[in-house]
């Protein structure tokens, strides 16, 4: 397996190169697979499972995370179906219940990927899960950055960004299982070498890592997800490809 090959997502032929994950190939083809822990520029983690797709046919199929599973020639991937999206909606809903996510008071609202994912996945029915309402810490020790861990979804983006891009290791996981949390490498954030310019401070999908002095700067209507559903940029690529091909004709 050396050259480019084809596989199918929801029956659509997608081109891939060896080593590409299902999600990378889908992104390039303009097919959006919902994701929270994965973000461009960081290594894949496969933690949130929101990108779960089914490969290998409906009945005998296996659920895999599209961000870590390599694409293979002839693979049949089930992505945007009611069944897949129902599982994703439940996962996202449980993330809302596991922390304290009060959209009306959160400065990330409108730019928050968790919120945007809930909108995309139609999370509007009355909930079937209890709210855990944990008591978590607010760390405002750093002069430029605050951490409201009530909103952390443990996606690990800040950990990967700090280790791999900033080469600092400001963030890391502590604890196991349901008790696993993101923690800082010091007594508090002020006692780490965290800096506002770090890549880690710009990758948080929710309102946990707060850049002080910037809150609510963007008016409602001009925020990122006021312009379209999460994933619309990737889905727009499919249209661009067609337009480019048309232009060449």
């Amino acid at each position, binding site marked *: 397996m050396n050259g480019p090959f084809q596989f199918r997502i929801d029956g659509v032929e997608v081109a891939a190169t060896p080593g590409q994950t299902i999600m990378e190939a889908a992104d390039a083809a303009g097919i959006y697979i919902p994701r929270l822990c994965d973000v461009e520029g960081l290594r894949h983690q496969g933690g949130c499972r929101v990108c779960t797709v089914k490969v290998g046919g409906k009945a005998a199929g296996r659920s895999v995370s599209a961000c870590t599973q390599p694409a293979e020639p002839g693979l049949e991937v089930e992505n945007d179906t009611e069944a897949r999206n129902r599982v994703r909606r439940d996962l996202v809903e449980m993330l*809302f219940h596991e922390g*304290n996510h*009060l*959209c*009306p*008071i*959160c400065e990330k*609202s*409108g730019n928050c990927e968790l*919120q945007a994912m*809930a*909108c*995309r996945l*139609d999370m*509007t*029915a*009355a*909930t079937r899960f*209890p*709210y855990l*309402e*944990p*008591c978590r*810490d*607010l760390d405002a020790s750093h002069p430029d950055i605050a951490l409201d861990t*009530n909103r952390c979804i443990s996606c690990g983006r800040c950990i990967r960004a700090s280790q791999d891009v900033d080469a600092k290791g400001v963030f890391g996981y502590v604890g196991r299982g349901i008790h696993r949390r993101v923690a800082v490498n010091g007594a508090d954030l002020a006692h780490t070498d965290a800096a506002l310019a770090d890549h880690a401070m710009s990758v948080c999908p929710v309102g946990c890592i707060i850049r002080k002095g910037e809150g609510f700067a963007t008016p*409602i209507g001009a925020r990122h997800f006021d312009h*379209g*559903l999460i994933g619309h940029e990737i889905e727009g690529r499919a249209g661009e490809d067609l337009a480019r091909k048309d232009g060449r004709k």
Partner: protein
Amino acid sequence: MTEPRKARVATVSLAGCFGCHMAILDIDERLIALMERVEFDRSPLTDIKTFNRRCDIGIIEGGCCNEENVHTLIDFRKNCDVLIALGQCAIMGGLPAMRNAIMHSADPLRECLEEAYLTGPYLRNTTRLIPNDPVLPLILDKVYPCSEIVDIDYQIPGCAPSGDIIFSTLVALLDGKFTGFERETLRFD
């Protein structure tokens, strides 16, 4: 043959700020078209305070923060065919639910009341007491979303929901054609 009667709508604000009721007014001039199809029954808009007949649609603003909220909500469920939770407070507790966990306290209700009436830095409370008159509804240990108390048929998200989403949802329900919201119109704030 008698004319088909107008749908009866009841509304109430529980632990809310009346912002969602204000948002109903954001339906603007379409209210005239809507009022040809519905009439308000028990509602702060009519000042009717009890149910005297069954209603078709009940609209709940706010979650439950005290005993009276719970009784009112159960009364709405008993007397309305379709119950709608309008806005984030009704759906998940909203701003009042900040007292549930964000106080970082083992006893959040006590801490909340003490700061509000006794220890807050900008207080002038000459009695030095937390209000405890028997006529006041008993405050609950925490703020509950409506769906934890009764079955909710539909939830319209937003803080407050836009007049557009309230109008389109009500019209779709009246037509018997509600199948869900336009994803692009969903807002949680």
